[in-house]
C-alpha cells in the first residue's frame, strides 16, 4: 500500500510549526500506523534527516501514551481504538493522511506530534483518589459492592488518560476525563467520604488548567478509545452542584 502524508513538524514549544509532505511506499496492510511512522523515521535517520517525534509505549491500546489526529479525527477513523491499534489495512490505498498533534491550550506541543498532558496529572492530584494509607484497609470483603455497581465503576475507571476527549472537543474540555474519575470513585462505597470535596477540587483544578467547558457536542464520547460515556459528565455536574451548595466552597 502507498500513502501520502502531511505531518505536523514543530521543533519545540516556542517554535512555529508547519506541515511536511512525506510518502510511505510499499507498506504492508498488517503494519500498524505507528510502525508505519517507525519505518518513515528509520528512512529519515538514514538520510540524515530529523525523525518525527511522537509518544507511544505499550502499543496495545492500554497505556494511553499514543494519540495523534489523523485527518482531523482523534486517534484515527476506527471507533473505540487508539492510534497504535490502527493498522494500515484500516485505510485506503493511495489515501492522503494528515497527521497532527492534539490541539488544546492546556496541552502545549513539545515537539512535532508530542504534547504535554501533565495538566491531567494535576487534576488527579487535586482529588482523584480515595485516601487509604497503606496498611489501614479493612478486610476486602467487609463491604459488599453489588456487581452492577462494580461494573459501572469499572466502565468509568477504564479511562487511559490519553487526552483524545480534549483533542476532539471544540472547547478543548476535559470533562469526560474528569467525569470518568469522579464517576469511578463516586460509584463505590469506599469513595463516599471524600465525594463532595473530590468533585469540587477536581473541577476547580480542571478550570485552572485552561480546559474549556462542555456544551454537549458529544465529540469526546465518539473519540474515546475506551468508549467512556458522557453520562459521567452528567454525574460529575450533579456531584459538583450538590457539593458546591453543601460545602459552600
Amino acid at each position: 500500500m502507498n500513502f501520502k502524508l502531511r505531518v505536523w513538524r514543530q521543533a519545540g514549544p516556542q517554535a512555529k510549526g508547519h506541515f511536511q509532505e512525506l510518502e510511505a511506499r510499499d507498506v504492508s496492510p498488517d503494519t500498524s500506523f505507528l510502525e508505519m511512522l517507525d519505518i518513515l523515521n528509520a528512512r529519515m535517520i538514514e538520510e540524515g534527516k530529523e525523525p518525527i517525534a511522537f509518544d507511544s509505549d505499550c502499543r496495545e491500546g492500554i497505556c494511553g501514551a499514543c494519540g495523534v489526529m489523523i485527518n482531523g479525527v482523534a486517534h484515527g477513523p476506527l471507533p473505540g481504538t487508539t492510534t497504535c491499534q490502527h493498522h494500515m489495512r484500516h485505510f485506503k490505498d493511495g489515501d492522503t493522511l494528515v497527521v497532527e498533534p492534539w490541539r488544546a491550550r492546556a496541552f502545549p506541543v513539545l515537539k512535532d506530534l508530542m504534547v504535554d498532558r501533565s495538566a491531567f496529572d494535576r487534576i488527579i492530584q487535586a482529588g482523584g483518589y480515595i485516601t487509604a494509607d497503606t496498611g489501614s484497609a479493612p478486610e476486602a470483603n467487609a463491604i459488599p459492592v453489588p456487581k452492577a455497581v462494580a461494573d459501572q465503576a469499572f466502565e468509568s475507571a477504564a479511562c487511559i488518560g490519553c487526552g483524545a476527549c480534549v483533542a476532539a472537543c471544540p472547547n478543548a474540555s476535559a470533562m469526560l476525563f474528569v467525569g470518568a474519575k469522579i464517576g469511578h470513585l463516586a460509584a463505590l462505597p469506599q469513595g463516599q467520604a471524600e465525594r463532595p470535596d473530590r468533585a469540587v477540587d477536581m473541577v476547580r483544578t480542571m478550570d485552572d488548567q485552561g480546559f474549556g467547558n462542555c456544551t454537549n457536542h458529544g465529540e469526546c464520547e465518539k473519540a474515546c478509545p475506551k468508549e467512556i460515556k458522557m453520562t459521567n459528565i452528567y454525574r460529575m455536574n450533579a456531584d459538583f452542584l450538590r457539593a458546591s451548595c453543601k460545602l459552600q466552597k
Partner: protein
Amino acid sequence: MQLDPKVPGGPIQDKWDNHRFAMKLVNPANRRKYDVIVVGTGLAGASAAATLGEAGYHVQSFCFQDTPRRAHSIAAQGGINAAKNYRNDGDSVWRLFYDTVKGGDYRSREANVYRLAQISVNIIDQCVAQGVPFAREYGGLLANRSFGGAQVSRTFYARGQTGQQLLLGAYQALSRQIHAGTVTMHPRTEMLDVVVVDGRARGIVVRDLVTGKVSSHSAHAVVLATGGYSPVFYLSTNAVGCNVTATWRAHKRGAGFANPCFTQIHPTCIPPAEGGHQSKLTLMSESLRNDGRVWVPKEKGDKRAPGSIPEAERDYYLERRYPAFGNLVPRDVASRAAKERVDAGYGVGGSGVGVYLDFQDAIGRLGKGTIEERYGNLFQMYERITGEDPYRVPMRIYPAPHYTMGGLWVDYNLMSTVPGLFVIGEANFSDHGANRLGASALMQGLADGYFVVPYTLADYLASTRLDPIAADGAEFRGAEEDVRAKVQKLLSVKGKRTAESFHRELGDLMWHAAGMSRNAEGLGKALARVPGLRAEFWENVNVPGSGEDLNQALERAGRVADFLEFAEILVRDALERNESCGGHFREEYQTEDGEARRVDDQYSHASVWEYKGPKMEPALHKEPLEFEHVKPTQRSYK
C-alpha cells in the same frame, strides 16, 4: 562480592513477623529529614513512593514516561493472586507458597516466597480500599478465577485489565502524596547512572528527556523499580520503551546481577505477521486458556480453514499430553509444547508459526454473553490486530518473551550488593525462581512496594550513619561526566545504521540462541557474535540531532547500547547453567518425554554475576538455595 541473603532465623511462618519486630524504626518526626529516590512508577515503584511518602519521608520519584500512570504494569491483563481462600477450595498461605516455589522450579529463596504469600492477602484489602473495581459476584463479594498452573481459584481480576486498575490505584495513591508535597515527581526523566559514595548508593544521574539536561539528585537511599529486560529479544510483549538501562548501569556500579538467563516466554501471544515491521508482540492473557482449547491439525501442513477441520482430525495436544492439567499447564510447558508442534510442521496461519486457541466449546457451553463478559476486551484487541473475529474463528497464538525472573540480586531486605540500593518488582530476582506463575507479578510488585521495602528501608536508614551529602561532590560530577561523554559518543559516530536495526539484529540472535530453548553450541556462537555486533554499533550507528533537546533516537540508542552489553551475561549465564529449569530450557538436559531436567546437586543456587570492567569477563558468585519446606521433585503435570 559478598552474598549474604540475611534470611531471619526461626520457623518460616514467623520469620517476617520476627524480622519486623527486630528491625529499627525511624522516628516519625525524623522521617522528613531523609531523602529517598524511587526510580520507576509501575506497581512496585508507585506503591513504594506513595507508601514512603505517607510515612513522611521526602521522596523523589522518576519515570521516563510522560506521566507515572503509563508504566508497563498497566498492560498486565489476567489478575493478581492472593491466598484469601474465599472459594473455600483448600487454598492457604502455605499452598500459595508451595505452588510458587514449585512453579519456580526450585530456584527461588523459600523465605522470600513465604513472605510474599503472607502479604498477598493484605494487598487485596489495600487495593479494594483504594477503589480498585475488582470483579464481583452477584452478592457483592469479590470474584475469583483459577489461573495457569493453579488448582485453586485465587486470582482476583478486573476484566482483562487488572494491571491497569491496580496501577491506577497506586498512581492515585502516589498522586495524593505529590499533592501533599511528600513526593516530588520527575516525569520524562531517565536514570542513567547510580552514584556510589563511600560504598553506598547516594544518588542518581538523570537526563531530562525534554531539555536534554543532565543532572544529579542525592539521597539517603535509592530504590530501583525499573522492570525487566524482555526487549533484549527485540520482539516481546513489553512496551517499546522498556529497557535494561537502569539495572545494567547499577550493575556496572557494583550491583550483582542474578540469574539473567531466567526469562519467561508467554504461551498466548498473537503470532508475528509475515514479513512485517512489527515493533512488538501482543499478549493475550493466559486466562483465555481457562475456556479456550489449544489444538493443531493432526495432519502436517494442513492448510484447510480451522472450521473445515473435523473434530477427529484435530490434535488437542496439551490435553493429550497432560491429562490432569490440560490447557492449564504452566507457561513454560505450554510454550515449549507449542514450539514443538510448530517445529514439527503442524503450525497454523499464513506463516505456519502459531497454534489454535479455540472457544467454540466454551461458547456452546456457557453462551457468547459469558465469554464476552470474561474476555470481551481481549477478543476485541485480537480482532483489531489480526482482522479476524475470535467468536467465529479460533485465535492463532504463539509464545513470546514476556517477563524476566532474573534481575539484580537482593537479600531478604530487598537490598542489592550495593548498600543503600534497593531493588523491587520485576527489576529484582527474588521470588519467582526460574519461572513465574500467572498472576504473581502484580502480587510481587505490590508486595515489595506497599509492604516490604517501606519497612526494610526504614531499618537501613535507622541503623546506618549517613552523612549529609550534596549532589555536586566529586562522585556526582564524575558520574555526570560519564553520562555526558556517552551521549556525545553516541551522537558523534555518525554511521549508517539506525539503533533500531542493531536492536532487531540483536533480538533475532538472542531469540534463536537464548529464547525458548537453548543449547551449548548455539549459546557459544552467540557469545562470540555479540561483541562483534556491539563493536559495529559503536562504529556504525547513526544518531541524528543533538543532546540538548528532545531526541527520541538518542534515548533509544542509549538503551540499545546497554542491551548490547547486557545480552552477553544473559548468554553466559545460560551457557554456564548446565541444566534445564523453569524458563531456562537447555536441550541437552531433558527427560525422555521432553520435560526439563534439573541438576539439583550442581545448580541449586542463584548465579550472581559481578561486573569486572569493560574488557574483563564477569565473575560468577553463587547463593546456595536450601529447601526445608518444599522438597524438590521433578515437576510433572501429567
